[in-house]
């Protein structure tokens, strides 16, 4: 007997087809293909473009070669730079700054709150090329706004892009992404019943105590979620390229930028694919952690509700 359902299986399959094709071609296929290419010595030009040979783990071996691992401009160096970058600009920078901003937003009057939010969110939503250029102008040694202010305050100006490029991109990325953490913590704080804080006020708690003893424990789950998400995003971010192109001398060459250079400047697709696979593995680990935490949280919520 034909079962009734709101959407028959035949029509449902039809509905799913366009999406399935797109996802299959541009997410699933690349996933498998990048793994495959990483085992070849394929390049864009020359002999190995038309006839790439299977080389097994050679690409990976070369990437992790202890002799070159820490050399500037090699994979190991890029991996280290990227890890430091993520730790500093995401975990320390964006999360802490976002937390601080969200906490401040609770305590200031609405007009000021709207102004600060607008600025922070503006940094996040503007297209990446625009803000890359904005910072380019901002940091200009001769006329840039930053040096103008420093000179005005009597401080020495600096050619930051040339001399402290790593710190530039750390601060840049913190500035760029803090909005997300701020909004996440904002909504986390908003979900705490105000009576909790009022009770603390009555008991004479200071702001820091209220933050440490009430707010922080209650939003712990959100903190973890936030950290994992921004870690994933920062790990894959390409935007600093627009500011420093990975230089000078590979000092800001994040994994994504290194991947780009290897594949599209050096035309070594096989090696680039290997880098891509490694990035995907790291993403996978982070994504699985995120999913397992999410499932654990919803299971706990379900148990609490019964």
């Amino acid at each position, binding site marked *: 007997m034909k079962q009734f359902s709101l959407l028959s299986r035949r029509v449902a399959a039809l509905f*799913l087809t366009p999406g399935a094709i797109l996802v299959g071609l541009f997410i699933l296929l690349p996933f498998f293909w990048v793994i495959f290419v990483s085992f070849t010595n394929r390049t864009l030009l020359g002999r190995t473009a038309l006839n790439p040979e299977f080389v097994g783990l050679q690409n990976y071996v070369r990437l992790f070669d202890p002799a070159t691992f820490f050399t500037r401009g090699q994979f190991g160096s890029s991996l280290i730079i990227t890890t430091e970058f993520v730790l500093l600009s995401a975990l320390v920078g964006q999360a802490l700054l976002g937390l601080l901003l969200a906490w401040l937003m609770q305590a200031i009057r609405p007009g000021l709150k709207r102004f600060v939010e607008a600025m922070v969110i*503006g940094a996040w939503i*503007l297209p*990446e090329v625009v803000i890359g*250029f*904005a910072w380019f102008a*901002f940091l200009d040694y001769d006329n840039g706004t930053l040096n103008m202010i420093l000179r005005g305050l009597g401080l020495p100006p600096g050619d930051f892009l040339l001399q402290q490029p790593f710190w530039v991109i750390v601060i840049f990325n913190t500035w760029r992404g803090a909005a997300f953490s701020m909004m996440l913590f904002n909504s986390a704080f908003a979900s705490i019943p105000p009576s909790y804080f009022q009770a603390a006020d009555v008991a004479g708690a200071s702001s820091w105590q209220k933050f440490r003893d009430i707010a922080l424990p209650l939003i712990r789950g959100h903190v973890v979620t936030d950290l994992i998400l921004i870690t*994933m995003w920062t790990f894959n971010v390409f935007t600093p390229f627009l500011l420093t192109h990975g230089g000078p001398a590979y000092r800001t060459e994040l994994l994504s930028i290194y991947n780009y250079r290897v594949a599209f400047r050096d035309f070594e697709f096989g090696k680039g694919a290997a880098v*891509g696979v490694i990035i995907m593995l790291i993403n996978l680990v982070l*994504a699985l952690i995120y999913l397992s935490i999410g499932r654990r949280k919803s299971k706990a919520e379900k148990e609490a509700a019964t």
Partner: protein
Amino acid sequence: MSGGAFLSRIGFSVLAALLGVLFALPLIWFIFAPFNARAEMGLALPDPWTLSNFVTVFQNAFAVRALFNSLIQSVGGVILIGAAATLAAYALSRSTIPGKSAVTYVLLLFSSVVSGSAAMVPIFLIISAMGLIDTQLAVILVFAGGLLPTAMFILRDFIDGIPKSYEESAMVAGASPLQAFFDVALPVIRPGIVVIVVWAFVNIWGSFLIPFILLRSSEQMPASVAIYSFYSEAGTPIVTLLAAYALIYSLPVVLLYLFVSWRFGFRFFGGIKA
């Protein structure tokens, strides 16, 4: 309010204001430079305020064409994503296909793992194999595929929240499943589709890496790559052109953000339900 609380409130306000200003600093330049016919990298008050830079932009065929390309890519991508995601999300929500929720989560997992940064090589190879290198279509397709899982996830969640009794009552009243879908379900899903469309538009409009990899000739470049080439090419960038152009390029994003937060509050930006 006690004295101590008053002081700490002032302290907070000062700190918040300071942070606000710090965040605004790199962008202040944009308030002045586009309207300054003699704009340079430095911060300077326009004297006089003028719109001549914008005129220059619109006289630059390359720049205008690039904006147009951005529009084609964004609108094309958005149409594709909107249609595909709505159909797929509806099917996932309303049908009895086994393993539906597993499929959604697996897809979401894949889409976050297979990022642009990780998959640039195979995406290039796939597009080459399809003969689509240096076409707008390539960018549209790649983005449609990449953004689809998140769009489907958000929409499916949204559709799950719509009572099935809507379509059921329509069918009891005599509607076929397709009639019920178009008359009753689709209009109610529309707000969710709007959110998806805006989110996808902003993503594609602002993207740099994918068009950078997939497009070769300058006629195909979208505005993002155009701006990049303006200031990264050897020699001094034409700041007046750049400033005005960047402002024009940013405008749709800012307007859309204002529109969404006016209509819906800030819930879906970033693909995450905040």
